[in-house]
């Protein structure tokens, strides 16, 4: 067992973990933040995507111990002061989700992507979400949700 300290959604969490504990299980089962999902186990589906030190990664393919001393943002950390962020709002307005299982991963991918791309083209958005599988929406409205958020971010600054 090893002692780790991970800042998740701005809060420090200390825990004793087995080195083999996957980050996704640390988040879901130790911290009980169940918005981060598991869909494929082989780093293909992106349902487990979180932002680790500013970069969106698949938390099923990172050991929790690798996150020691680092910062993790999960879907539960996106809402600020009771207000959805622009991308969450975009998903709501544009019907970017159906069963909701891939949605947290899609939101976390977008969190990083839109920070670095103020005016993404549709093609860039489609490539950006190509590590996140959605079985319900056919992606059309997810692309629109990203465009909605990008527009809002250009108009009203970051969130």
């Amino acid at each position, binding site marked *: 067992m090893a002692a780790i300290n991970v800042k998740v959604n701005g809060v420090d969490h200390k825990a004793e973990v087995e080195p083999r504990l996957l980050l996704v299980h640390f988040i879901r089962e130790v911290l009980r933040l169940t*918005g981060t999902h598991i869909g494929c186990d082989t780093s*293909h589906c992106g349902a487990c995507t979180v932002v680790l030190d500013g970069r969106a990664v698949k938390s099923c393919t990172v050991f929790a111990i690798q996150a020691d001393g680092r910062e993790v943002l999960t879907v539960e950390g996106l809402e600020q002061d009771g207000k959805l962020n622009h991308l969450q709002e975009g998903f*709501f307005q544009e019907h970017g989700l159906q*069963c*909701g299982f891939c949605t947290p991963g899609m939101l976390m991918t977008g969190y990083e992507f839109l920070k670095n791309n103020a005016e993404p083209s549709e093609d860039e958005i489609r490539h950006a979400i190509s590590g996140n599988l959605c079985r*319900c929406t056919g*992606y*059309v409205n997810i692309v629109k949700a990203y465009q909605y958020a990008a527009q809002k971010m250009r108009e009203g600054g970051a969130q």
Partner: protein
Amino acid sequence: MTPRTSPEVGGMGHSVKRKEDPRFLRGQGNYVDDVVLPDMLYLDIVRSPYAHAKITNIDTSKALAIPGVAAVITGKDLAQYNLHWMPTLMSDTQMVLPVEKVMYQAQEVAAVLATSRYVAADGVDAVEIDYDPLPVVVDPKKALLPDAPVLRTDKEGKKDNHIWHWEWGDKAATDKTFQEAEVTVQEDIYIPRIHVSSIETCGCVAHFNKVTGKLTVWMTTQAPHAIRTVFALVAGHVGLAEHKIQIISPDIGGGFGGKVPVYPGYVIAVAASVLTGKPVKWIEDRMENLQADSFARDYHISAELAGKKDGTITGLRIKTIADHGYTDAAANPSKFPAGLFHICTGSYDLKAAHVEVDGAYTNKPPGGIAYRCSFRVTEAVHTIERIADVMAHEIGMDPAEFRFKNFIKPEQFPYKSALGWEYDSGNYAAALKLAMERIEYDELRKEQAEKRARGELTGIGISSFTEIVGAGPSKHFDILGLKMFDSAEIRVHPTGKVIARFGTKSQGQGHETTYAQIIAEELGFPVADIAVEEGDTDTAPYGLGTYASRSTPVAGAACAMAARKIRDKARKIAAYLLEAHEDDLEWEPGKFFVKGSPDRAKTIQEISLAAYTNHPPGVEAGLEAVDYYDPPNLTYPFGSYICVVDIDKGTGEVKIRRFVAVDDCGNIINPMIVEGQIHGGLTMGLAPAMYEEIQYDESGNNLNGSFMNYLLPTAVETPKWETDKTCTPSPHHPLGAKGVGESATVGAPAAIVNAVVDAMWHLGVRHIDIPITPAKVWKLLRENGVSE
């Protein structure tokens, strides 16, 4: 359709934003793997590496020695309670855990219970099993040969691998159309085994309370009520009675038919909880999911079409071998072993048709669930849309013109098909015409000709499909005897707020919003004031569940009917309050008023309060209603899809340049949700058309057992879908609606294949089986002398 209600009320026709979204967007959904109970054990499954083998020994000692491993369960343990076999939905039998032999690779062989999922996985590793491999049969055609090894040795007297023979239609009349035909075409069409791959796998948390004797199971199921009954029937002899079984289907991360059946893992988890008295969680990982359950299709079809030189089609003859794996665990209405495959005459008016299907056992996991389709409708549509296209090309007629010539005409509805279905309504030509306008069909044909002259390959493919959804009328439709009605229960509270519960279960379709809109439409309560619940068998009325696009046609109808019962009672209360005769009252959404005196009115909210505070003498207090809706007929949504592809002559890659989908699902409740369903359905039509297939080698090894080789399309492969609609209401549905969740999955593959074949027909290519991989296209190109 112009909405009758205001946007604030949000009845039919409004794109109301979804009520379920706020929790999902915050990561606050509650899926099965999110359920954690005190003292819970984790169940993990040891699976067979062989597709067919005798089990000679199971040694659990090393696994049991691992700290944290609580128990290892084998078939012999379950056999003590006669729970090692279970019935399937098609009245075949399926092993829960084997005692003698395994029948497919990845079959459950033993189950490990441990205090964490990590320890359980270590336990699985440590169970030692000896096998004696047996001959493997993977090809259903070979399985039906006389010298094939008999797989179901458990069935006394079974001497072959033939499950059943089923046929439908007038054989003599059909044969006659072929004898008299000026043109006939034949094509072998394989619709491969595919896998639904909802992003959430299957799983459950079973909790048997030894003190109360109550079993609660949180479960990924599309049909919680039916599951409860099945559990009671299967495990009644060990003391599980139906009033002490509660199935809770929480938020479901996609179903698509894969979460209809009862899989061994669920039963093992229930048994484990009963045996240990502790809650037991079983969650499949993706490899298990892709290798053991949720398989669809696997139809080896030979189709023939008879017709005249002028393009009139007259007869259809189909023979099919259905590969069911080692047991027939298909999810079909009980009377229809090949599902609704006999909708295969499609959108065309033809004189006669005859269909034969033979089921075969092979050393594969059970197949036959739906993959987002209404009981083999995809197989049917693919067959007719492919063979029709072959004939159109064969006689040199434009595929659009060929379809216009043969469509059932609007004035022929209700239309009795050659195979006995009564189509409720349709205007097929209008949908195809609109699709052709949207895609600029004539221009495309010109462009295609120009490109062909330059040696470039472009194809245009049409699919004008007819669906059959909303099972179904109780006369013909049941599952294990349970009639396929569905239900709604609506309760209006004194303050004018509403809770409604249903026998269905959304897996992403947005029922919480759609059903609320139906109630808003019928009663005038704003959607915001209506709570919709599904999935808890202790509270919701009995229903058969959500699959086969049946929620709107059946439960949606029940919802409207229950609301109308409430409205009838509200009329009595309003009459009492307004001191008017019931017949003198008029309804507009949200209020009753006295004819000719619109200001003498009572709102539905005022009436709600009166139902509890000032109800009329002789009328019961309260305002609630239940409806169990038995549909008089199925509904027949339809559409026309046109796909344009460009083919890379060097690599064989197919690029979908455009795809226009015109759907007609009758009256629409929420246009936003309907469009979303079509987007998703199209993508699940693209997937098997071009990417997905579960393949086995000769030893029965699954070659696509992870997302590395089972290829779900990403946003990059998926075209930007273009959608449009026509509206032909269902005459028998109370809202004129038809159901839409699966249309696009059913209709899309044929459009894609037809486009690809259209691009290469002049080279001599007649057909290509799905999935259309670059390697297959390359082979066809090179065989026909085309290269880069």
